[in-house]
């Protein structure tokens, strides 16, 4: 069995190639000047620059958090380059034909044919390469429906009122150390606005790719679903295989106004580092949604990559009858460490939340669920159900659960359950006795273990997630 685990650990990271693209990259280092330069590169208005500088001051006063159950070398924030853009971006392409072919080939390799397949799949894509958004497809079709889907740098120029009103409204600048850093140096990301009563005609999707060495990626996503609207958003991430650790500190803010619904799905497959824990992405992400009256936000994530993950997609259930959901599969192997979970803050009456978290640990990895369910004094009749299951594969890994439950309202009901188990010999025996080989049996058992989460993913993503999991688990159990 150990041998087979080792085999699995040696599996190559498929997205680990480097694209040879000429790029313009800032020298490593962070000070006010760098922030001014980022802002200037983006030709940002003054209010945006001021906002960044304020965040930078805040960040300088903050301390790096240490409470997560992860162990990593301290980040040298002066050794990171805070801006990198493919050179050909200087004249921004007007259409796909003008995009650097090398860039398109990169996305092709990643399995994201920007055009053809999207036509068939009907998914609009915004692709972010290092620090800039390189291409956004289907803009016209979305425009007809009144949906705005563009790089956030463009939104700052063209829709300043919306950006001013909502940027930082969900995740305030001083929320946490990495969020503050992101506010100061974020380079690009996606901006989505769905007008009142509109159902977004297609699924929106962003692919993030870190390519340059020693760069950090600090993207910022802002999605606003106006009253009665509906949108489904997909996010995918990859990075080349490098020996150094790279930092990814993103902030995602979702605003679901009255009766709106946002479904946010992530397949995160950043480079996890090699079997000895060398290299890999530090994924320190802040994701949060505000739900107004009758609104619903649903987070679904499949986390298989990154050396260190520190991520808690949360919902603030501010409006009455609002709903928050969190479905997560986190798989760690090799030396990966994941500390992930959610926060459900119930403020309004009859708010409901569901948390389903599935953690799978293999190799010498550590996988933690950390969650908070808070029932405020006004949350009459609120309801939460939480289920965290962990599956251990091999005897060198760790699975941990740290749920915080805080209640200040007697009419609210909170239920939390957690279990830990391994793939049992009985299950394996039953499958093998019916003619499945060990590998298929494990894959089937793990897929069954994750089923509740996978069924929440949009179809294309569910297929991708299942495949990702299968490759990751290859040969890991005998």
């Amino acid at each position, binding site marked *: 069995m150990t041998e087979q685990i080792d085999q699995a650990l040696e599996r190559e990271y498929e997205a680990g190639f480097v694209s040879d693209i000429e790029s313009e990259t800032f020298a490593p280092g962070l000070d006010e000047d760098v922030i001014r330069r980022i802002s200037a590169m983006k030709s940002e208005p003054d209010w945006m620059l001021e906002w960044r500088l304020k965040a930078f001051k805040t960040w300088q006063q903050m301390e790096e958090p240490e409470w997560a159950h992860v162990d990593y070398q301290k980040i040298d924030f002066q050794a990171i380059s805070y801006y990198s853009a493919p050179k050909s971006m200087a004249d921004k392409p007007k259409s796909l034909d003008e995009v650097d072919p090398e860039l398109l080939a990169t996305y092709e390799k990643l399995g994201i044919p920007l055009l053809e397949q999207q036509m068939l799949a009907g998914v609009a894509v915004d692709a972010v390469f290092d620090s800039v958004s390189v291409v956004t497809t289907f803009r016209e079709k979305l425009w007809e429906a009144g949906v705005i889907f563009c790089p956030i740098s463009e939104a700052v120029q063209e829709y300043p009122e919306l950006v001013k009103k909502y940027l930082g409204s969900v995740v305030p600048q001083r929320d946490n150390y990495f969020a503050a850093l992101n506010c100061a140096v974020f380079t690009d990301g996606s901006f989505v606005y769905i007008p009142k009563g509109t159902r977004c005609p297609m699924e929106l999707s962003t692919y993030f790719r870190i390519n340059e060495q020693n760069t950090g990626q600090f993207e910022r996503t802002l999605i606003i679903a106006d009253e009665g609207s509906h949108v489904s958003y997909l996010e995918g991430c990859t990075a080349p295989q490098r020996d150094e650790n790279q930092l990814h500190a993103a902030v995602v803010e979702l605003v679901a106004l009255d009766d709106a619904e946002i479904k946010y799905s992530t397949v995160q497959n950043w480079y996890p580092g090699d079997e000895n824990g060398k290299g890999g992405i530090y994924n320190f992400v802040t994701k949060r949604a505000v739900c107004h009256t009758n609104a619903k936000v649903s987070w679904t994530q499949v986390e298989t990559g990154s050396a260190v993950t520190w991520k808690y997609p949360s919902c603030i259930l501010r409006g009455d009858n609002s709903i928050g959901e969190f479905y997560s599969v986190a798989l760690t192997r090799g030396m990966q460490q994941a500390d992930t979970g959610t926060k459900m803050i119930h403020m309004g009456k009859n708010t409901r939340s569901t948390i389903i978290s599935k953690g799978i640990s293999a190799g010498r990895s550590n996988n933690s669920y950390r969650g908070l369910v808070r029932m405020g004094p006004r949350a009459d009749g609120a309801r939460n159900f939480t289920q965290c299951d962990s599956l251990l594969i091999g005897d060198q890994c760790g*699975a941990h*659960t*740290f749920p915080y*439950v805080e209640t200040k309202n007697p009419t609210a009901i909170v239920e939390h*359950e*957690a279990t830990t188990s391994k793939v049992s010999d009985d299950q394996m025996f039953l499958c093998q006795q019916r003619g499945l080989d060990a590998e298929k049996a494990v894959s089937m058992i793990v897929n069954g273990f994750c089923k509740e989460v996978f069924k929440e993913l949009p179809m294309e993503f569910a297929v991708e997630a299942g495949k990702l999991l299968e490759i990751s688990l290859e040969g890991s159990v005998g």
Partner: protein
Amino acid sequence: MSTWLANAVDRGGATNDWLSPKRQQSLELLQQSRWPTRKTEAWKYTSVNMLVDATFAETSDGIFDAPELIDNLDSIDLLLVDGVLRSDIGDLPSGLSIYSIADTPIEQREWAAEVFTGAKPSKHYFGLVNDVLATAGVLIDVAEGVKVDRPIRVICRQSNGCESHTRILMRLGSNAEAVIIEDFAGEVKSFNTGFSEYIVGESATLEHYRIAMNTGEAISIGGCHFNLNYRSALNSTVVGLGSSLSRLDIDVNHIGEYATAKLNAFYLLNGSETFDLHSSIEHIAANGTSEENVRGIVADSSRAVFNGRIHIHRNAQKTLAELNNRNLLLSRNAEIYTKPELEIYADDVRCAHGATIAEIDKEALYYLQSRGMSKAQAQIMLSFGFINELVDQMPNQNLAAWLRPHLRRRFAEMESTQ
């Protein structure tokens, strides 16, 4: 550091007895540790600010709540007032030795010194305070193979306005059996730390009770710590009422294989009381089992905090660990904070935890009212049923019989404040 603590440390540093080397170690650790604030994870929900500038008398005025007799218990009673043993140690059954810590015979000191800091993790801030300041207390030794048939009841009382630090050290030899009741109670304004440490030998059985009934203005911080050796068994029950600040840490270390631990705890809070229970089960050796049931009823503007940790170490394969925390929240002003934790490093284990928080089932209430009960009666009956399951599980039913009227009285008080 608080002025109270600086003062206390000065006093502790001056102590010169046979435990001084151990106290010195703890003193150094204490000086390296930070005074707990709401930013300290272990004190996230309970503030000890009231202790920062507190002053307490160091000597007793001799007035304390007299202990109650417990019918049919037939216990060996040891009365400690402000941490100092008051009762004479009379004739003891053979194989059982009891000493006051201050008068420990030289030949017993070696193991006693080991037990003194042997089971309690050094991260407990007030455990270190207790190490430094608990100069009196009791030492109980049960020889190999001895079954002590009478329960040992350690009655701890505080006198008004006084600060006290109590320590109980107990060793059970292999195949020994004993029942111990740590009886802390009193309504007077006082501050006490009460820590106890147990070494349970191979195949030995310990039945343990901690009655944590310091109420009113009492500030009570304590802990019970157990080292379980090969095939030993622990059955522990914690009964808590809240006070202006009550904190209890239970630590169980499965250091030998095949050890079993059963832990039941329940608390009833009223007024503006706080009860903060932390439990930590360390499965260090393989094939151990632990089962923990914690229930709380929280009324008026009281606050309950529970942190239940299960830690399965790399070598603790084949462990079976379960933890269940259920809470009844009876009032709009009451608060419950619960955090069941699992930290698992071995794969062939079965672990589960669950936590629920809710109010009394409205349908059950309606059902009883429709049978002619008043709402108040029905509520008492349902809350009592919620707790009684654990009272029924107490192995010593004489103690349970004594406890029930106390609980009933508490329920009536809780009802009247709603």
